[in-house]
């Protein structure tokens, strides 16, 4: 080996720098010039002032130390979270918030997955919904009013790179009036993944019957599945929770009086609120029913329905007696 450069520190430093720059240019700088690094989906919308304020809080609180925001194209991951992340979804991400550690679930498809009320409540007290969750409580976000001037200046900074974000201070002020950090966070969470269509609901064939109706083993299994997956929103006895999710054992289905057949239940559970389109009923304006199609097998879903039907019959039989007890 030519030994001379090991006597010349400046030459050595220059050569080391050049050596370091080769890989940097090829894998870091050069890609910036390529179109495949700057894609943007036509459906991608820029952040509103409220959503951006929520994103800022997400950064400030370091939520990305526990949550990723990128769904990998693996079958199990798509089944768990929804469509895998597309390159064109991230044009407004400064920086990207993909994260590297999933102590909690991925949030790339969180938007619309849960009702607003659930998100507020869960943020303030995660253990209320998932008793063994280790997510910290973020109750302090409530009541911390947003500073419109600050958010305006943040939008203005981003507008250097994205002119369409240029804020109108008066409008920002109006949008943020009376809003606090919890409002901002929920607004941010609810738009995550908005550029990609959510899980497609299966076309509902309402003539299909429940193969497990009245099957005792299925009813028992359904009860457990319900407790694990549904009770957090619909309540332990499926009677619903105010502002979060409706009762599943009353005579109202998707806000319209009159129950629907088991197949309609199946469609809602499998496809979530997106399935409403195929059922012809309005339901809640903001939706919020999670699609369980990827997580629960068909058997599981029919078992839950069998238990729900059993529960409803049971409830009807007990009737007034039960009510009286509750009001004591």
């Amino acid at each position, binding site marked *: 080996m030519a030994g001379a450069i090991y006597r010349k520190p400046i030459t050595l430093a220059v050569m080391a720098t050049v050596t*370091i720059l080769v890989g940097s240019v090829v894998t870091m700088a050069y890609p910036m010039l390529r179109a495949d690094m700057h894609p943007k989906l036509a459906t991608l919308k820029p952040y509103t002032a409220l959503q951006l304020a929520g994103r800022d809080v997400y950064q400030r*609180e*370091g939520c990305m130390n526990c949550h990723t925001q990128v769904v990998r194209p693996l079958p199990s991951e798509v089944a768990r979270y929804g469509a895998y992340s597309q390159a064109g979804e991230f044009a407004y991400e400064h920086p990207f918030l993909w994260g590297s550690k999933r102590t909690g679930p991925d949030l790339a498809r969180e938007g619309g997955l849960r009702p607003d009320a659930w998100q507020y409540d869960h943020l303030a007290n995660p253990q209320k919904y998932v008793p063994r969750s280790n997510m*910290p409580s973020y109750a302090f976000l409530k009541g911390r009013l947003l500073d419109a001037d600050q958010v305006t200046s943040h939008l203005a900074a981003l507008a250097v*790179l994205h002119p369409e974000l240029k804020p109108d201070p008066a409008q920002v002020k109006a949008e943020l009036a009376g809003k606090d950090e919890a409002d901002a966070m929920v607004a941010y969470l609810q738009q995550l993944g908005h550029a990609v269509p959510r899980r497609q609901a299966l076309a509902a064939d309402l003539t299909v019957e429940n193969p497990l109706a009245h099957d005792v083993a299925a009813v028992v299994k359904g009860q457990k599945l319900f407790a694990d997956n549904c009770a957090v929103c619909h309540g332990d006895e499926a009677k619903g929770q105010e502002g979060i999710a409706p009762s599943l054992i009353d005579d109202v289905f998707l806000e319209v009086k009159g129950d629907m057949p088991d197949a309609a239940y199946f469609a809602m559970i499998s496809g979530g609120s997106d399935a409403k389109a195929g059922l012809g009923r309005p339901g809640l304006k903001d939706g919020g029913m999670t699609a369980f199609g*990827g997580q629960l097998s068909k058997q599981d879903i029919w078992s839950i329905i069998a238990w729900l039907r059993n529960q409803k019959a049971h409830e009807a039989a007990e009737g007034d007696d039960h009510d009286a007890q509750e009001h004591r």
Partner: protein
Amino acid sequence: MNDYRYDNQTVQGFILSAIFWGVVGILVGLLISIQLWAPAANFAPYFTYGRLRVVHTNGLAFGLGAGVIFGLLLYVVMRLSGRPLVFPRLARFQLWYFNLVIAAAALSLFAGWDQSNEYAELEWPLDVAVVVLWVIFAVNVFATIIKRKEPQLYVSLWYTIATVVAIAVLYIVNNLAIPAGLGKSYHLFAGLNSANVEWWYGHNAVGFLFTTPFLAMFFYFMPKALGIPLYSHRLSILAFWSLIFGYLWTGAHHLVYTPIPDWLQTLGIVFTLFLIAPSWGSVINGYYTVGSDWSKMRTNYLAKFFVLAITFYGLQTVQGPTQALRVVSQLIHGTDWVPGHVHMGTMGWVTLTATASIYYVIPRIYGTTIYSEKVANIHFWLVLVGQLLFSVTMWITGIQQGAMWKATNPDGTLKYTFVESLVKNYPYWHTRTLAGLIFTAGMLFFVYNVLMTIRKGRALQASAPAPRASSPAPA
């Protein structure tokens, strides 16, 4: 007026500061490890997990890591140049300024100033301060090397030079941002580029903060402490150039299966596999050096520190490339396997090398010997057990998590909910806290040993005329 004594006090100042920030960082590590199984241990708003994890990583990378780098590399540069620092007062200023910057950095992270880029969380005012800090360091390193009395540049100096230039390039590029107020900025790059630039930086922050400077220390202090010359100069040359060439291509192995283009991922993975070669070049060089006289393992208490350190480096650099493979990444990415990997590197390789080097330097500053080899041995065994317990438990629970996330029924539906996989971690997370306690106890023995050695040295100095530290040039 200048002599080694003044500069040695600066070196000692850096070492003590690094130890201080290291202890802070480790205590925060203990707290976040508890928060993961006891959410009630979060104290909003300043002390929640999301903010503290960043204090832990930055505190240890920049407080402990950079502090040790400044202190020990200035020492190495002086010895290998055969002269004191060219700008001793600048170095003293750097010491105070360093502590100020780290303190401000910690406060800013508690306050939630967070750029959300891993290992580049500090907001732009602190970034500016860090760049100034680094430039001050570079000035002394280059000036002293240029004015050296030794013609040859020893391998530790190449690694030092590469560290100085690489960190400068990496840090500045990845921290380019549009400021939006004092504590807020937005990364200059969007989406895919933001990710790609960040992991180009992130992987090389590990490379040039936790690898090259510690190789510089290893190749200087290990032969010195054991009194054995380095096995092969030629192997060092090969390993050095191929390492600093290869490292910069591999950032995309942190982005496997993300939407960045496939060619970038594949390129990153290929170079990652190549990195085994230069890494193991250093490992072999280390082993063969000690191998010329294994009896040192018995006779010299520092031998085992260095041998275990390079062993963990060797394991780390096999595990790392494996993790980059698509089939492995699928399973372990995002799980607790990765903290298992991380802490074998940080607790094993980095802190073992740093503490052994400090054990070598501190007594030499006073011309004395270590306060207690016995305490050093207790320190060694405790950190070793703590680290192994930490990594092994995380690997097990990481694989279990990954497997549960992937498990599907024949009809394509998932076998386990997310929460079922979360709950399985708890016993392992309890054990990790125990491992952390053992490791911390070990580190406290180390701190005690260092402080007592300094005390012993000061007493010596007071009773005798000021001893001039010798300036041994490399054999």
